[in-house]
């Protein structure tokens, strides 16, 4: 059987993703998970895993370099990729929220003046505010978004929140929930069609594993 290439996201979703594949019976040795390699074979060559930044996982899948991938739905909401999204994986649950410093939170959502919102998700942010008829200037940042209101770059941020501790520790509180997010399985369109049996079998196994 041909090898299936799986793109996994670096960061907080990596460990649960590898764990999920272990649960469906893939032999992934500790050596492979502890090494710094970005590409490795597992389960006797049945899978090739590649580890990419979350925002890059859908790119590898869309181009067919990876047949399938795991990525947070926040990434899929931010950028449009032509991939299949057949399964929610029920881990990595978090929330995209609009947050502001505690002392400004009482104002609620700004209705009149132009405000600056810093975020890793500018498209999503623009869509959210547009849908509420509120004008904001979106500032794209690549990380540590909480820094923006602390230093005065922006009055508010749109960020991914899991436990809420990072926000709290930086004096920020959520003012609105924009969307829920969780890990998703994505599949390259062509692979899904030309390798339908294998990929359907994989989806079924994953589906069973997450139901437990």
């Amino acid at each position, binding site marked *: 059987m041909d090898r299936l290439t799986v793109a996994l996201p670096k960061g907080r979703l990596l460990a649960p993703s590898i764990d999920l594949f272990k649960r469906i019976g893939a032999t992934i040795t500790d050596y492979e998970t502890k090494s710094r390699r970005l590409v490795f074979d597992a389960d006797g060559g049945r899978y090739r895993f590649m580890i990419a930044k979350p925002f890059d996982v859908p790119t590898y899948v869309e181009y*067919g*370099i990876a047949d399938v991938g795991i990525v947070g739905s926040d990434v899929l909401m931010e950028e449009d990729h032509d991939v299949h999204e*057949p399964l*929610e994986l029920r881990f990595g649950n978090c929330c995209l929220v609009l947050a502001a410093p505690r002392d400004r939170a009482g104002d609620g959502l700004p209705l009149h003046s132009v405000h600056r919102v810093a975020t890793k998700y500018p498209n999503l942010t623009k869509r959210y505010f547009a849908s509420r008829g509120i004008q904001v200037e979106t500032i794209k940042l690549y990380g540590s978004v909480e820094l923006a209101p602390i230093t005065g770059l922006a009055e508010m941020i749109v960020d991914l929140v899991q436990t809420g501790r990072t926000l709290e520790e930086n004096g920020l509180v959520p003012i609105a929930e924009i969307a829920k997010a969780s890990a998703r399985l994505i599949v390259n369109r062509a692979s899904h*069609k030309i390798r339908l049996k294998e990929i359907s079998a994989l989806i079924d196994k994953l589906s069973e594993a997450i139901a437990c």
Partner: protein
Amino acid sequence: MRREDVNMSDRAINSMPAGVTDVLLDDAQLKSHIEVSLREVFQGWGYAEVITPMFECYEVLLAGGIDPEWMYKFSDPGGGILALRPDLTTPIARVVATRLREAPKPLRLFYVENVFRRPEPKRGKRAEFPQAGIELVGSTQPAADAEVVATAIEALQRLGIDDFQLNLGQIGFFQGVIEDAPLSESEITVIKERLDRRDREELTRFVEGRNLPEDKQRLILEMLTLCGGEKVIERASTLADNETSEAALENLAEIYRILGDYRLVDRVAIDLAEVRGFGYYTGLMFEGFSRSLGSSILKGGRYDDLIAKFGYPCPAVGCAFDIDRIRTIVQKEKLPALPGVDTLVRFSRERRGEAYELAKMLRAQGKRVEIEVVDRREEEALAYARQKGMAELIVLEEGGKRIVPLKTSDTKDQQR
């Protein structure tokens, strides 16, 4: 700004518009080779070439139902709006309805042309790309649909592509599913989007949130599983709940049967969940994939209502090959070496005329010959000829004619 200040080499002269590319030398040769191969297959099946203009009236392209977002538009001096053609099927529909109305049917037409689509900036999609395709006009018979599929299969095999699969769908099945469901246009669009992404959970949530009868809900969700082999058609028949869907399945089953007679069904899969495609498809819809590539290499289908838009109701079915994508996978397969330049002829001044006659004679024999037009020493010429993979250097000099072979048939000798 003074003229000397404009340093072209730094800027404009090296830049290209987004989405276009040069195809050079070997790549161009490979592209040509693919096009010649496709032409031969098309002609073998009785198709004749049509060549339409690169740009058309905007209204004509709109009549074909093409998304205006995709089109490069510009205005003509008279103020009319023109657009670069984003596909060939619509212009050919115009041609059939006007210039070829009286031509004997069925009409078999093929094209090998570039199409133009405004690329999405961030994705680097192609603004211009070559397509080759066929249109079989004037028959509603499943045999016509099957012919187009069979021609596509043969065309790929002729190119040495073996790891491909054609997925057949039928838009009529889905149209039947939603036609008697209380759904608005926008709700149908959402369902199509969810189906397109094979997003079972979102589709389920959406469908359960509408006021749909239970079995209709189940049918819509079942669509996600209607992919696979021949059995899919049988299973879909048990699920189909109205005549439109049943007729669509009958049609697809018949096309499949004919392909069975042609012994081509091992290349074909059924995919009723595929609802994306040009708005003008009315029946069969199919896409071709190769294991070597993450995107489709050909698309086609039946479009019985399009030519009518130009005043001449006429059924048609066709498909288009993406030559760029095919070129990517053909490169990966083992291909016989494409011909290069065979010979370089050098000469002393007084033998120039003979050199010309010699080259002419060799060319008449089918060889590719270069005549030296640069002043250089023989070693340099030999290095040049070797780099270009030539077989020989011929020198016409005062003392006579020398032939220097550059490749020996037994390469082991060379290594010794």
